[in-house]
């Protein structure tokens, strides 16, 4: 027995029935637009799924940042804006929803209570569950992008802390403006000479992508952003001894705790054994675990013959411009003297371009398909309740009031879907976290706000369909124009 049949049996007074063929025809334009959205959503989802999957697979290691188009920039901005403005939008939504709820409770015989009554006569459970599912997907996807792009910078931040550098003022010289952790090198003797001549202290480092493993674990990260600093710097900042070694299996490393190797345990780095002398809690990157090691040990055992990736210029705070001019004049035009903040920004931009476009495409695809379903549910509700609406119109109720009633109800449903959406979001985050080593995506207020805002915008957009349906039910308007 269909739901309509149940309604007929239970409530004989309601003439809620599916639309006749003629009514379907009258609504045909709306139906065509809905079909268009569904097809567009399908094409968007289908066409981008492969691209998104490919990108998600690649972000385990360093992908080529091929997405630098205007569209990608817009997607990145949209992702960031959703997280930035989501919480205040959610806050406003909750305040407005609470005010409406209070107003309705205080005046049960008022207009608002009547609007609530006419829009809450059939079960809305299914709709709220669907809303919660769509919202949960957005919440989960939003958190993924944040965790991936922010987490990737953790080793860089750790390096800044260890050398006691000021993020904004301490100069950092690299071989080019290309990516950190990609093989960009400097002519260290020349760079060192320039820094020393200007009165600074050079601190060389190697930043590379290595491979670290927990020999006792069944799953391991695909790559390890590895920062090698002079042993003296590590000893001074962390109080850890990094002695000279004869055997490459005697290396000492500092590693992210998500690898699961305790202090004193043994890890495998680039196929060589290393003792974990300290674990640090970093914000994890996708499928990655950060490693910090001794430059002296690394030059001997991990990257023999590899030139330095860059050098810090301690004691020359704020003199990036002067250093920039010197390294370009004396060494190479591609040399870059930057601050840690600039270095991090470049790395973040790289990850933003790698992770956020496919993430946002995933969100948009979900919303495109979701909005089509939401529009279908909303229009179906109006069609099945068109006799009730027609009756209200016949009693002189303004169609604007009816449209407003349904719009408020839809936004109320969105708000009420926020809490149950957390179930879907947490489940999705767990799925990501288990699929990608090392990531610990958390559901927080920013991602929840992003999910609410995205669904709010969707229901706002699809309200056009519902309002159009109500407009068409208004037979009085047809009469008004023809008499």
């Amino acid at each position, binding site marked *: 027995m269909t739901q309509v049949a149940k309604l007929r049996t239970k409530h004989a007074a309601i003439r809620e029935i599916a639309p006749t063929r003629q009514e379907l025809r009258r609504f045909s334009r709306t139906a065509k637009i809905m079909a268009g959205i569904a097809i567009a959503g399908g094409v968007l989802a289908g066409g981008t799924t492969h691209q998104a999957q490919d990108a998600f697979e690649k972000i385990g290691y360093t992908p080529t940042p091929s997405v630098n188009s205007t569209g990608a920039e817009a997607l990145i901005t949209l992702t960031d804006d959703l997280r930035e403005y989501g919480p205040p939008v959610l806050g406003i939504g909750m305040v407005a929803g609470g005010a409406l709820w209070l107003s309705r409770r205080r005046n049960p015989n008022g207009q608002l209570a*009547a609007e609530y009554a006419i829009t809450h*006569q059939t079960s809305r459970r299914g709709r709220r569950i669907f809303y919660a599912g769509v919202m949960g997907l957005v919440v989960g996807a939003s958190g993924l992008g944040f965790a991936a792009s922010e987490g990737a910078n953790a080793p860089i931040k750790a390096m800044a802390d260890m050398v006691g550098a000021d993020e904004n003022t301490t100069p950092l010289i690299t071989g080019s403006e290309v990516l950190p952790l990609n093989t960009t090198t400097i002519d260290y003797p020349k760079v060192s000479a320039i820094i020393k001549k200007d009165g600074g202290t050079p601190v060389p480092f190697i930043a590379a992508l290595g491979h670290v493993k927990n020999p006792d674990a069944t799953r391991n990260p695909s790559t390890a952003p590895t920062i090698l600093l002079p042993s003296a710097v590590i000893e001074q900042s962390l109080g850890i001894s990094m002695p000279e070694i004869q055997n490459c299996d005697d290396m000492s490393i500092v590693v992210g705790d998500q690898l699961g190797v305790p202090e004193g345990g043994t890890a495998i780095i680039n196929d060589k054994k290393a003792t974990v002398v300290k674990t640090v809690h970093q914000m994890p990157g996708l499928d990655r675990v950060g490693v910090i090691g001794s430059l002296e040990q690394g030059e001997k055992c991990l990257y023999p013959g590899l030139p330095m990736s860059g050098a810090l210029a301690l004691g020359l705070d704020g003199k990036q411009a002067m250093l920039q001019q010197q390294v370009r004049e004396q060494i190479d035009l591609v040399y870059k003297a930057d601050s840690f903040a600039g270095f991090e920004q470049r790395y973040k931009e790289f990850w933003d371009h790698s992770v956020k476009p496919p993430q946002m495409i995933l969100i948009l695809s979900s919303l495109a398909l979701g909005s089509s379903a939401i529009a279908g549910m909303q229009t179906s509700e109006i069609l099945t309740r068109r006799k009730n609406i027609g009756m209200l119109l016949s009693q002189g109720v303004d169609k604007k009031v009816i449209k407003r009633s349904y719009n408020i109800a839809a936004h109320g449903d969105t708000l009420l879907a926020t809490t149950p959406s957390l179930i879907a979001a947490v489940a999705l985050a767990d799925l990501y976290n288990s699929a990608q080593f090392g990531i610990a995506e958390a559901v927080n207020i920013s991602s929840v706000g992003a999910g609410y805002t995205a669904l709010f915008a969707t229901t706002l957009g699809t309200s056009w369909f519902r309002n159009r349906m109500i407009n068409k039910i208004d037979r009085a308007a047809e009469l008004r124009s023809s008499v």
Partner: protein
Amino acid sequence: MTHTEYDPSTHRLGIHSKHLSVTTTTGETLLDDITLNIRQGEFVAIHGQSGAGKSLLATALCGIRFTEKREPLGVEKLLRSKIATAAALLLHLHTEKEAESPVRYQGDVTYSLSEQTGHGRVSLPHDYNILRRNIGFVPQEPLLDGNLTAEDNILIPSRLKQIPVNHEILEEVFRQLDLSEETRQKKAGKLSGGQKSRVAIARALAATPNALVLDEPTANLNPELKDETNQMLESLNRQLGMTVIAVTHEDTLATRRIEMSRGRVVSDSSKADFYSRNSL
């Protein structure tokens, strides 16, 4: 029935049609050149056989028209489910050639509303909202929301319109329509056919309109309630000066009887004492 706010001398609504015709696009004439002058405070009964155009005339006069009921055809029955609705919308299914045709209105319908226009005439569409608040309509089917209580069905339209309800008048309406407190608190879906009809009448009267248009209001009532309802309508008309137009097959206490056949007015007989009684 006593009240303090309603002033019949200033709140009266007349309805006037001039050469009103309604035809389908296939050329079928549903209403044919109807010219009527229903004065403020008249009690008019529209009679005629089924299909004569009575209901269409009533709804046209008060600016409303519902879709005519139609039995579903062929596979359309299969589409009459909530689940299939969205699919049908998306696929835009046509099972057979169009059975119903949209209608075309010609002519003129105007309203004279004493209070708002100073005995002038209200013309569509500019004063439509004012007009809609002043006409109570009782459809042939009660069209109650079965999930709401009877009282909510009665009061919600007024609440949505933000029109204050005159509870004194409404209590009197409840009494005359035999709508007890217990009945009013029942879900509308649980009411009998007669109770639903009475609730629909009460709903139309809740906002104390200036004119009341009823489409076969007593069809589902027992003889005793038919008499009481007729007396109530007569009372509303006589004591409040409310213009009443009732489409009916029954004998009423109406002061004017309009007979229709095949979309035309074939007789229009007024009682002589009507004008002297109302001084209109």
